[in-house]
């Protein structure tokens, strides 16, 4: 018997428990799917053997009646997660050949829950990018295409572009992502899937290649909200190895999905109506309001007055942390090391190693980061940005103190764009992709992107819900209510 494709985690879980097919059969189906999906360039490494081994172990647990929700579920893993003995390069040449002797806490938890690893997923180099184009492996491709340009390759977004493409293309049931400024939510919106950025500290960062430590969070990228709830439950939890991980119990997120949001107060922030935003995004947002109102929520207009400073503050803080976090890639202990010539020393080794190993966007951010931290500029940039960050956080605190339960915004300022379309643009145009998402990272809040409609070109569009800290359960339930009313049943037509 062969296992079918197109199932959600919840459907597969129920079928596996019922014995409709085995975990091994499901793994075989997806090992093949992942390999067939080569043109999407989503998988950069396949771990098929490991997948089958894990599937057999999952079958044993299923048989024994000891099968957690993720048991036997085939997943793709973003290349930012350290996976023991499996290449982990953060899609960068500087980590060429790196196979960690350790497993990240989040993936360890998934494997402990019985999940199956199909392979590693493409991403922007060191998670720096919004289109997956900075990857050393070349861009992942969005399974979706424009009606009027069916041959043009579109970006799946970034940085978790490979994860988004793999889930949207049904190369795996779900994938891990990481989100520093929108890297889960933007690609989810670009590919018509669901993506959650949990509260900062909900998922352990141990074993995830660091980009910006105070902003990075791992989260699930799934077909729907229920799957996100199931997978987040398996990923989350306190980790004493990560000092910023919160020692809080993980609630049963799936159990919170009642769809009942009557009386919930949903805030619509006026500052998110940005200049030049396409009318269809405006319409999508209005539709989302109506859907939540229809579900019985109270819609209120709110103000988050410091929103316009968020993007500049983000592009000071994130590069500052990155410039320091990436200092370890020096060619001394692992990864790429440049050859040096007679008479050259350690300085030349550093310079050439990093010049050869890092791509342009990573170099740009390291330079920005080093600049904003340097003597004489620290106060004007880094310190100022931290103050802005505090103000942005306060904006949210005020709104929540006033009784708002969640905030509804567009997830992205546009639908997916073409690969290479931004190549000649000012890098700041690319950074504008994060305009709706960075505030959430700066404030450490949970956010979720849910597909709610299609663009005129037939591309998926998503809305973002932002929740109260640590109240992912409530946020997921609000998203669930939105999802039900949006009833987004579209799929990318297979062309690959």
């Amino acid at each position: 018997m062969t296992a079918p494709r197109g199932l959600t985690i919840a459907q597969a879980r129920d079928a596996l428990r019922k014995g409709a097919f085995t975990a091994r059969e499901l793994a075989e189906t997806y090992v093949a799917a992942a390999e067939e999906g080569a043109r999407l360039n989503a998988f950069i490494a396949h771990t098929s053997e490991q997948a089958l081994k894990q599937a057999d172990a999952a079958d044993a647990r299923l048989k024994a009646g000891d099968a957690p929700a993720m048991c036997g579920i085939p997943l793709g893993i973003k290349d930012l997660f350290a996976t023991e003995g499996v290449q982990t390069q953060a899609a960068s040449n500087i980590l060429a050949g790196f196979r960690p002797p350790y497993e990240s806490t989040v993936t360890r938890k998934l494997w402990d829950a019985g999940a199956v690893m199909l392979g590693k997923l493409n991403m922007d180099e060191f998670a720096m990018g919004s289109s997956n184009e900075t990857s050393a492996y070349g861009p992942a491709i969005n399974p979706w295409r424009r009606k009027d340009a069916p041959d043009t390759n579109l970006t799946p977004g970034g940085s978790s572009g490979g994860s988004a493409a793999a889930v949207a293309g049904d190369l795996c049931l779900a994938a891990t992502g990481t989100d520093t400024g929108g890297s889960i939510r933007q690609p989810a919106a670009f590919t018509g899937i669901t993506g959650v950025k949990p509260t900062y500290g909900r998922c352990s960062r141990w074993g995830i290649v660091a980009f910006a430590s105070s902003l990075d969070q791992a989260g699930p990228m799934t077909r729907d909200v229920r799957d996100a709830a199931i997978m987040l439950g398996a990923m989350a939890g306190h980790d004493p190895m990560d000092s910023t991980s919160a020692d809080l119990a993980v609630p049963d997120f799936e159990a919170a999905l009642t769809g009942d949001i009557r009386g919930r107060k949903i805030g619509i922030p006026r500052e998110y109506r940005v200049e030049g935003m396409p009318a269809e995004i405006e319409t999508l947002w209005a539709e989302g309001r109506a859907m939540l109102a229809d579900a019985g929520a109270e819609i209120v207009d709110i103000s988050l007055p410091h929103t316009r400073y968020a993007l500049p503050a983000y592009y000071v803080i994130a590069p500052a942390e990155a410039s320091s976090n990436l200092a370890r890639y020096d060619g001394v202990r692992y990864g790429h090391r440049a050859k040096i010539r007679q008479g050259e020393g350690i300085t030349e080794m550093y310079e050439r190693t990093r010049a050869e190993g890092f791509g342009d966007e990573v170099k740009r951010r390291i330079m920005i980061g080093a600049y904003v931290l340097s003597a004489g500029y620290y106060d004007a940039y880094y310190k100022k940005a931290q103050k802005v960050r505090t103000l942005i956080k306060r904006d949210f605190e005020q709104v929540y103190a006033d009784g708002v339960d969640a905030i509804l915004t567009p997830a992205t300022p546009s639908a997916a764009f073409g690969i290479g379309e931004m190549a000649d643009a000012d890098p700041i145009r690319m950074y504008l992709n994060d305009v709706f998402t960075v505030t959430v990272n700066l404030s450490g809040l949970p956010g979720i992107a849910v597909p709610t409609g299609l663009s005129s070109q037939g591309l998926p569009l998503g809305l973002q819900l932002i929740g109260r800290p640590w109240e992912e359960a409530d946020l997921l339930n609000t998203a669930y209510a939105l999802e039900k009313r949006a009833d987004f049943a579209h799929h990318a037509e297979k062309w690959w």
Partner: protein
Amino acid sequence: MSELSYTEPKPKTIAGAREDWELVIGMEVHAQVKSTAKLFSGASTTFGAEPNTNVALVDAAMPGMLPVINEFCVEQAVRTGLGLKAGINLFSQFDRKNYFYPDLPQGYQISQLYHPIVGEGEVIVDMEPGVARRVRIERIHLEQDAGKSIHDMDPTMSFVDLNRTGVALMEIVSRPDIRGPEEAAEYVRKLRQILRYLDTCDGNMQEGSLRADVNVSVCRPGAYETYRETGDFGHLGTRCEIKNMNSMRFIQQAIDFEARRQIAILEDGGKIDQETRLYDPTRGETRSMRSKEEAHDYRYFPDPDLLPLTIQQSWVDRIRASLPELPDQKKARFVQDYGMTEYDASVLTAETANATFFEQVATGRDGKTAANWVINELFGRLNKEGHGIADSPVSAAQLGTIIDLIARGDISGKIAKDLFEILWTEGGNPAQIVEDRGMKQVTDTGAIEAAVDDVLAANPDKAAQAREKPSMAGWFVGQVMKATGGKANPKAVNEIIRAKLGI
């Protein structure tokens, strides 16, 4: 227990070719925290292990690895702060100091620039009895040590040993209150003594557990006092920092050289460049390492991998309650309780183990006698043989018994020294040895009288002379002592001889 009063010493003056100069010295001492594990990892801190064996994943800065604070190291820093009478900051924070070096895997050192764990304290630096310098401590912060680069193992390659990477250091920063090379060395010695009392640093300078960066400047007499009144560093000269000194002797030599170098420049009409210098002990000079312009831009910022370190006052109070008696208090108590000199008290309190040994000997006995025996006989002998108190062949109980035997009149002081020698080489029960080997002092006057009679009878001429010249009696005492094998009570012998001679 109160502390002894003291007066401050005069600053060291160096006569230049034209005028007199004074020295102003501040120190940054890096003390390795005594802890079995590193500051942010569980790797061992054992010295002398095979290269790269005490290395956790985070020490090697593997991708995605995160630091987790070792609470014991924090406790040790707090304990050290309390021992230096310093304020403890309940809120402190770790910052990253960014620079590239092969023995710094992360590309940054985790340190505490903006919010150190310990604030202002003091060290009383003893110079001689009754004279001490109060050196103010500005701050103590926790930071990671770096690894070791090895350049002399291969002609074309360098090697890196990460065993020391991430080991916890306390950087103890003084104010510029040290006024001469000797004071600088004594400051390090006193700091080391306190840290060893607190058991927060083993103070082993050869192994690099204690290293000092020394800031030296010179000024005209009176300028320093103006600085102290105003707090304005502008009254002081430009300083140079001599890095990484790990010997008291070299500290003194380097300061002396550096001060004279600066004076020569100033008297020549030149000016001092603020710079970092290294001391070369073989040539006895300091050399420029890098100038202010070449100084690194460390791009400090709060480490986002670590939450601010907040500790509870109640925890600090518990640590305070567990502090041992510290050198200054112990010394004062010894002077007051045992009536010994400040000098003897200093010798006995140099190390906790010495003081403990002494107190075991002195308990229930005369303090001064005990101090004499411990310092002169025991320490003298230990020093001669290169032993520490821990491997003393003579125990406190044995030494105490010797003193008891003297006090009871069982043995003379001279015999006691023989007994000490027997215990040192052979060991055993002192009272038993005295008994078995017939070392007991003869106090039986009958026996002494008989011995005196014999001597007098054998030397009639001398006896006659002695009656004329009483100072001759001493000769007879010696003869009688010789005849009794030294066991006769000399006082009794003297009295009997004088009685028999009628003098």
